[in-house]
């Protein structure tokens, strides 16, 4: 026992020494890397895999402008706001959904964009570009980038006739085969459309709640990411589910799933994302150039054809897509724009109200 513990004792002392040395080295190394950020870095805050971090795009941009693109990601809009609030002067470009842009501008988190420097400005669809959601007091706080529809999609192998009504989600024929996105605002919006109300301002929230509770026999599971949706559909967990248009295009094209997207006659939710520049952005010049590049047809066409993307806010870019592209065929359908309810900005109070409603519904659905 003595001999062993001696050896173990000294080897443990050595181990301790190496550990302390290693930790100090890490700390020093860490501080060193911390300061190595280059002057021409462009910090972008976005969802992962959502266009701005396409390797070929950032490489091209760096070659042309000398600005190196560094990404930081978020997993929800609230987390994006948290990061903006607690990291002033860190980010340059931020992706903000149009229903959040006004709030961010009012809070002073983003700055006005110098639209004279955006060469593609004239080609952007006026309805989105000039939307009051992105513009306040004559200043532009968000550059309309992409847009899409939140509606439903189904498995064409299982469902043979295309449903045309949103009530399909409540159809007993699909009991236990429906998937639903776990999101309060979206859920309230669907409930409102299904009860003939305005999704942005439902007059009778109780009716919406009852409609959502009626999903109990229908729902198999919730989903909250594109990847989950694909896996669920493929695994046969659901046959029809709420979904986003751009993602449906990707599921069909990139993953070869038998998916068809439906915009029902009662209407669907429209959304659009804008690129904004953070207040106190360290690299304003690079940021503005990046925004211009992102809305250019050059970037968009390659993005949509190689990976799959939501529809572009740039009419010229859309026009350059191949004739059979999802974004031209489905999104360009006549009469579809009229059936869309665009997501309006909500106050924190409204969000709290919708969140609580949805949480109550979810608790009941689980009983």
């Amino acid at each position, binding site marked *: 026992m003595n001999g062993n513990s001696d050896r173990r004792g000294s080897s443990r002392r050595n181990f301790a020494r190496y550990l302390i040395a290693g*930790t100090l080295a890490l700390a020093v190394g*860490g501080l060193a890397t911390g300061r190595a950020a280059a002057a021409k870095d462009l910090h972008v805050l976005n969802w992962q895999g959502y266009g701005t971090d396409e390797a070929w795009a950032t490489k091209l941009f760096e070659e042309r402008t000398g600005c190196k693109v560094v990404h930081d990601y978020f*997993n929800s809009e609230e987390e994006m706001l948290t990061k903006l609030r*607690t990291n002033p002067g860190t980010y340059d470009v931020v992706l903000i959904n149009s229903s959040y842009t006004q709030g961010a501008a009012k809070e002073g988190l983003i700055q006005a964009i110098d639209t004279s420097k955006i060469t593609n400005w004239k080609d952007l669809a006026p309805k989105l570009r000039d939307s009051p959601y992105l513009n306040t007091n004559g200043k532009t706080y968000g550059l309309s980038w992409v847009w899409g529809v939140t509606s439903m999609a189904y498995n064409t192998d299982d469902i043979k006739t295309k449903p045309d009504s949103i009530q399909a989600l409540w159809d007993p024929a699909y009991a236990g085969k429906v998937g639903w996105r776990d999101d309060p605002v979206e859920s309230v919006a669907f409930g409102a459309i299904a009860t003939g109300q305005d999704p942005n301002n439902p007059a009778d929230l109780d009716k919406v709640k009852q409609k959502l509770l009626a999903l109990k026999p229908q729902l198999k599971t919730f989903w909250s990411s594109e990847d989950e949706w694909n896996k669920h559909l*493929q695994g046969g967990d659901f046959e029809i589910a709420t979904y986003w248009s751009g993602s449906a295009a*990707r599921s069909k094209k990139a993953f070869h799933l038998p998916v068809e997207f439906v915009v029902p006659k009662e209407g669907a939710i429209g959304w659009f994302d804008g690129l904004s520049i953070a207040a106190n952005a360290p690299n304003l010049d690079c940021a503005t150039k990046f925004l211009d590049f992102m809305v250019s047809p050059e970037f968009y066409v390659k993005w949509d054809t190689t990976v799959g993307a939501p529809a572009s806010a740039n009419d010229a870019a859309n026009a350059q897509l191949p004739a059979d592209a999802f974004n031209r065929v489905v999104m360009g359908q006549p009469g579809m724009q009229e059936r869309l309810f665009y997501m309006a900005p909500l106050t924190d109070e409204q969000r709290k109200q919708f969140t609580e409603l949805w949480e109550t519904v979810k608790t009941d659905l689980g009983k």
Partner: protein
Amino acid sequence: MSRLWPLALKTYLGLTLAFLYLPIAVMILMAFNESPLYKLPVVWDTIWFVKLAGNDRLLTASAHSIVLALANTGVATALGTMAAFAFARYQFRGKTLLQILLFPPITIPWLIIGTSMLVLFFWVGIGRGLHSLLLGHVALSIPYVVVVVGARLKTFGPVYEEAAATLGATPWQAFWRISAPLMAPGVIAAALFAFAVSFDQFVISYFLAPPGWTTLPVEIYSAIRKGFTPEINAISTIIILVSMGLMLIFARLYRFGGER
């Protein structure tokens, strides 16, 4: 009957291990499956490993995770073991309060802790960075170390140290030659926990890492939105198999059983 008992228990242990490794086996299997959506039946393909070799982002993130976890393990195990020793061998006022203070880090969801750290560090001026990451990871690991080492110390009591004292050993000698070897399995288990806590820690890294510097869990959780591919299965497979190899070598060379 009593002769069957050891065999029965050992068989049970084998079954338990099989249960523990079932999803691991599935995860490894999917790393070799051609389908990006885990479609069955398995079509054998090494494409994800090939793609992984070119995926600098994921590889760098994994390296970061490992280094951070090692640093975390060293610091947390040292700090936690010392505190556990104090709790087990001494009675003092405020001991209960200190023990209760171990609960917030494991009870309160990491998201709250992460957000509050982010806010406080921002106000105080520490900000984000590797130092903040390490601060956060170690803080979350300490309670695990204290509880695990404490359990070990509780079981064998101070009798051995007291015996050593009556035989003339100084407290320092008693510690290194008696307590430390007896504590060893507890300390090693605690170190393994600390490593696991850090290696799979998403929230703290997500909030406190410097921009552009990521860890493996952050990459994985961020990727599920749109970009999840089985390259993640591939890197996980490599990590598991390498760790398994290292562990088996370690077990062969170094006895840490404590006695026997």
